[in-house]
């Protein structure tokens, strides 16, 4: 997407007592046996921002997300999501966030409408609450006209927007999207990001992981993870300025290859 970036400079990243943080973690760490997947990271994400979590495969992004969603207990450290402690109030967190996993995970043998109804019921919405909410989401997520088509027969872009609608069925204040646009065509990706911009404008906080640097540049805040560490954190513009580079892609590649050199040295 050769569009002008939307760095969101208005968002303060420095600690500020006025700012409401949707996500705040300190020294969050996770070990799998002797493997340190996440090595004590700390960051804060203000409400209403699109927060991009970047990093090569295996850098600890998914593990971080799972800890934030209450799917995994941290080995050390802690944090709050929507003001709820991730260690003690995981179940409440689940009620208040929407999640789209890396692997496309709607029921392919159910229609769009059936998937939305199912997830609506799972989040405790009853009969006509779901119906009303679905009608709203069909328009908002641009999935009108194929409500009764099986999800398995939809194209990538449609599936992805349906998944976003399912994740947003209960009007969560935080959306967690793990590589939502992997394997989707550019037109659909742009449409998807326009939807995300719209949601953020309504005050919804969005945590998104991606490998596409054009998408990363559209985030208000980005964090670069490498080998379980938080390599850099800030607005895309800050990160580029700090590294003295013109694009996030260069910053990312510099980090990734630098990491390789480090690994070779430490051997």
């Amino acid at each position, binding site marked *: 997407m050769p569009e002008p970036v939307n760095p969101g400079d208005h968002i303060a990243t420095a600690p500020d007592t006025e700012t409401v943080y949707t996500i705040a973690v300190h020294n969050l760490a996770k070990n799998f046996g002797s493997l340190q997947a996440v090595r004590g990271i700390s960051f804060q994400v203000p409400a209403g921002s699109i927060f991009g979590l970047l990093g090569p495969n295996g850098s600890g992004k998914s593990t971080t997300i799972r800890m934030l969603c209450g799917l*995994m207990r941290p080995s050390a450290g802690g944090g709050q999501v929507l003001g709820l402690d991730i260690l003690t109030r995981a179940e409440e967190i689940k009620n208040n966030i929407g999640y789209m996993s890396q692997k496309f995970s*709607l029921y392919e043998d159910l229609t769009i409408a059936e998937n939305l109804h199912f997830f609506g*019921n*799972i989040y405790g919405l009853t009969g006509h609450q779901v119906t009303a909410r679905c009608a709203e989401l069909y328009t908002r997520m641009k999935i009108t006209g194929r409500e009764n088509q099986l999800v398995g027969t939809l194209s990538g872009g449609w599936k992805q927007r349906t998944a976003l609608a399912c994740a947003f069925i209960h009007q969560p204040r935080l959306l967690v999207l793990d590589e939502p646009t992997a394997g989707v065509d550019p037109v659909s990706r742009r449409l998807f990001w326009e939807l995300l911009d719209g949601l953020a404008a309504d005050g919804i906080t969005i945590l998104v992981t991606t490998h596409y640097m054009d998408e990363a540049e559209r985030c208000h805040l980005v964090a670069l993870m490498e080998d379980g560490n938080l390599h850099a954190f800030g607005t895309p513009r800050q990160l580029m300025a700090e590294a003295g580079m013109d694009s996030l892609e260069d910053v990312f590649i510099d980090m990734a290859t630098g990491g390789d050199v480090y690994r070779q040295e430490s051997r």
Partner: protein
Amino acid sequence: MRGIRMLAIIRKEFIQIRRDPPSLVISLAMPVIMLLLFGYAVTTDVNHIPMAVLDQDHSQQSEMLAENLAGTGYLDLVYRVQSTHEIRALLDGGQVRAALIIPPGYARRLHRGETASVQFLVDGSDPLFARTAISTAEMVARVKSQQLSLEAMTAQGQTPPAGPGIDLRTRAWYNPGLESLKFNIPGLIGLVMQNVTIMLTAFALVRERERGTLEQLMVTPVRGAELMTGKLIPYILISFVDVALALGIGTLWFKVPVAGSVPLLLGLTLLFLVFALGLGMFFSTIARTQLQAMQMTMLFILPSVLLSGFVFPRASMPLPIQYLGDMIPLTYFLEILRGIMLKGVGINYLWGDVWPLAGFGAGIIALAAWRFKKRVE
């Protein structure tokens, strides 16, 4: 536990079952096919054993002996041959499994009141056939000998002794005709139900894991108990349809009536279903793919066929193997099924089997629930 979430899962499960007709057909056809197959194939009743006769005596007496053997119904006279070579060829080729050789002079010796020898050859490769053939031949020879000695006594003007002797009168209870079908059908109903139920439940949960939808569900507020009960209820219903089919075929087609109480039978069947569902669930918490779930089910089915007393009598197994059989819930359920269907006994005679079954059920459900943790780690 929120009813709305459980109902949502039940509804979704039914939609998925409806969208997948082959699976539904298989889960309903499997008990029918297995019952018909096993009902006809698994029979330990041996009769109509093909037999060849080499009659070198060509007498009325020798002819009668061959006819007496065939008249028992256990042996069929299919070949009359002229030489021992032919007998060897027929036995080698498997066309006959028994052969009777009556040497020349048979009738003459009998007439003289001497002992006449005949030879009875059996194909011992299948002990079941061989034993039946031998005992039939022995019985026929004994009866014949008694008859001949009586005739001889009468001919010499003596009165046959009416003195001491044992008059043994046998009667088989519960299955007077000693038909193995009657023994097999209840066992089959238990086995079929176990297999279908374990496989269905294991698949239902593993499918969600395989397709990534389980991860999606884990991030929702749905609780383990809601997910489990919601997923199991549709399969309990299918399993009960299977039970009804199996019982229907057993009683109407194979004419094995239920001698005891049908409600008791269904109640205890539900108890066994709880175990089977629990085991399916437990497998699904270990298996990552449907293939693995299938392999685990197969691994469980084989010992339960062999050790539960489904076909092979447990009493004749070595003690350690019998103990292994005690660890298989199907063993107890077969006792219950046979008890109710054949003997018509009530619950008072069955507690010894009901308690272990309940124990296994509770144990496996607890184990599966413990394994089914909400966190993915």
